[in-house]
């Protein structure tokens, strides 16, 4: 089967995804008999392109990375994301426009449009899950299409699907973990004596955080992931604003040194508890000691421990393989895995 793909949003993650798909195209062909082409691309600052016969993806990558517009690659004139979706004739859309924690827009409009046109949709956009999960998953179901969002949390470890398949009848009553790789990396590096500013710079240099790291260091990225997990796994709409996160800006080198001397360390801990209909969610820096499963999670490790009403605790943790640095490629992997799982059957 041939898949026409459209990429809505063409930043670090989407470009890493395009490269990953190219790297794996022989495997996709030999193992699943899948071929693909890119028929629509929409960028934030470098224009849009549509070509149902296939856009030259190598040129698109090259142009965007040298800050040129991709419009010359288009077979006709398109002005915005919605037009790209409507004219791309794609069967699958990857939605990776910038995250909007307040409303989830414009990603939700993009996804709704694509699903209504009969496309599968795969996204790393947490805003769309938090603000649109119930509507969009119902729409996808009614159209018989996939709405995949494993890439939104735990950089692509299949947490949502494994939970659903492992605990088919269980009710999630609490979870606890580390969900933001940037702050965990900063805290790990500060423990080794690096300054906060240098640690932030390091995270920017490997593409782990943005030029403006506010979202990460003030806890909003963790909060929106917490909200996504509550929305999906506890089946309860929840916003990052309800989490009221506390970030890591107030953690001083002195505090870290003192904790280290006591055999402890700071972690930006996410914790959620449900009692009855009441859900209490927190994101805040906490001191943890070696008896905590969070203590050993260093650098870009993220993970959660899940507690259900029926069975003992389960944890899933992702961490860097030796010789590997974290970055957009892991999120891209999450999108890629959703793609494979959506199309392999």
């Amino acid at each position, binding site marked *: 089967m041939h898949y026409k793909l459209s990429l809505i949003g063409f930043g670090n993650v989407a470009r890493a995804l395009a490269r990953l798909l190219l790297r794996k195209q022989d495997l996709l062909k030999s193992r699943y008999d899948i071929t693909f082409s890119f028929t629509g691309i929409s960028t934030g600052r470098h224009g849009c392109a549509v070509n149902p016969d296939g856009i030259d993806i190598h040129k698109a990558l090259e142009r965007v990375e040298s800050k040129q517009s991709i419009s010359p690659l288009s077979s006709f004139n398109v002005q915005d994301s919605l037009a790209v979706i409507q004219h791309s004739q794609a069967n699958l859309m990857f939605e990776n426009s910038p995250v909007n924690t307040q409303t989830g827009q414009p990603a939700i409009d993009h996804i709704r449009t694509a699903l209504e046109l009969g496309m599968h949709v795969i996204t790393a956009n947490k805003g769309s899950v938090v603000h649109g999960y119930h509507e969009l998953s119902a729409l996808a179901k009614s159209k018989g299409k996939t709405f995949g969002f494993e890439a939104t949390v735990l950089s692509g470890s299949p947490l949502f699907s494994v939970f659903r398949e492992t605990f088919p*009848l269980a009710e999630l009553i609490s979870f606890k973990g580390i969900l933001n790789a940037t702050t965990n990396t900063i805290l790990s590096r500060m423990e080794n004596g690096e300054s906060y500013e240098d640690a932030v710079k390091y995270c920017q240099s490997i593409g782990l955080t943005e030029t403006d790291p506010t979202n990460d260091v003030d806890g909003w990225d963790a909060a929106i992931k917490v909200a996504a997990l509550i929305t999906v796994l506890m089946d309860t709409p929840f916003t990052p604003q309800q989490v009221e996160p506390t970030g890591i800006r107030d953690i001083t080198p002195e505090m870290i040194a003192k904790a280290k001397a006591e055999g402890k360390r700071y972690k930006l801990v996410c914790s959620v508890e449900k009692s009855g209909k009441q859900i209490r969610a927190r994101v805040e820096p906490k001191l943890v000691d070696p008896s905590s499963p969070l203590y050993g999670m260093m650098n870009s490790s993220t993970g959660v421990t899940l507690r259900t009403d029926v069975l003992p605790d389960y*944890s899933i943790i992702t*961490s*860097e393989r030796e010789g590997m640095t974290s970055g957009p490629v*892991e999120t891209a*992997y999450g999108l890629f895995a959703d793609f494979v799982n959506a199309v392999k059957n």
Partner: protein
Amino acid sequence: MHYNLALIGFGNVGQALAQIFRDKHANLAQQFGADFMIVAVCDLLKGSVCDPNGLDPATLLDTLTATGKLETIVAPHHGWDALRTIADSGADVVVELSYTDLKTGEPALTHLRAALNAGKHVVTTNKGPIALHYAELKKIAETKGVEIGAEGTVMSGTPSLRLGLELLAAAGITRLQGIINGTTNYILTQMEAGMTYADALKEAQAKGYAEADPTGDVEGYDAAGKAVILANLLMGAALTMNDVDRVGITGLTPQDISAAAANGERWKLIGKVEKANGQVAASVRPTRLSITHPLASVGGATNALTFTTDLLGDVTLIGPGAGRLETGYAVLGDLLAIHRRFGK
């Protein structure tokens, strides 16, 4: 979609499954559109009963509690052996839960062969046939267009195989390593707290973690069986039990334990499966890990498995390695996987 199930073996896990159906039948129908009905139960000690119109799970459990047997249940057929049950009960899925034999895989192997050859799906928690004869069973299953579910063979209800297959689909697994035997991990944890090996073993037996004859656990055979299953199901290998480089924990002394502790380390019985130069190698060995290693903090009877992948880095799964309800849920997970694939 409706499924008739025949349960071969009605010990802890079979009863847990009956309990899940008793308590959650309506939820399963409503949430998944799957209607699972037990039509036959065949147990070597408790007897055998079959009713093609369905056996009530509550009646099965109550009768067993009251009489220790299944014989008094009113049903058209009693006393069928396992093979007759598989052949004549009208089951769509055979759930094989008889006792584990890691040397021959029997009698489960014969049961699974018969079920697959008759075109029935099978779900098993039995390591024997899966560790020893997976390739043969898989071939029959493919020919007949049916499924083999084996999630409960490794880490009981912790979804190691399911996660592995999901990761495998796209991430490329290069190494698996972890704590895959709860009994030995419990013993090592207790020894670190100052107990002798003999006392720790006694306690593990009292808690039901270890068998009266603990050889299978403490000499690493159980972990080796699981390593073979992981290698063959997730890495496409064709290993046998003899291919596993296996050392148990009986040689570890209190001095070894305290020497490690003094060095900021901890002994764990680590099962490992690794692909190198196109070959898959498996080992089970007591290993000293730094206490900062993610697997070092896994204490008691808990299990953990780290998947090293090409694209995603390391993914570690931690959860219970045993337990009747946990394993019952593993069987249910496999049944729902069959439903997802064939129930449309």
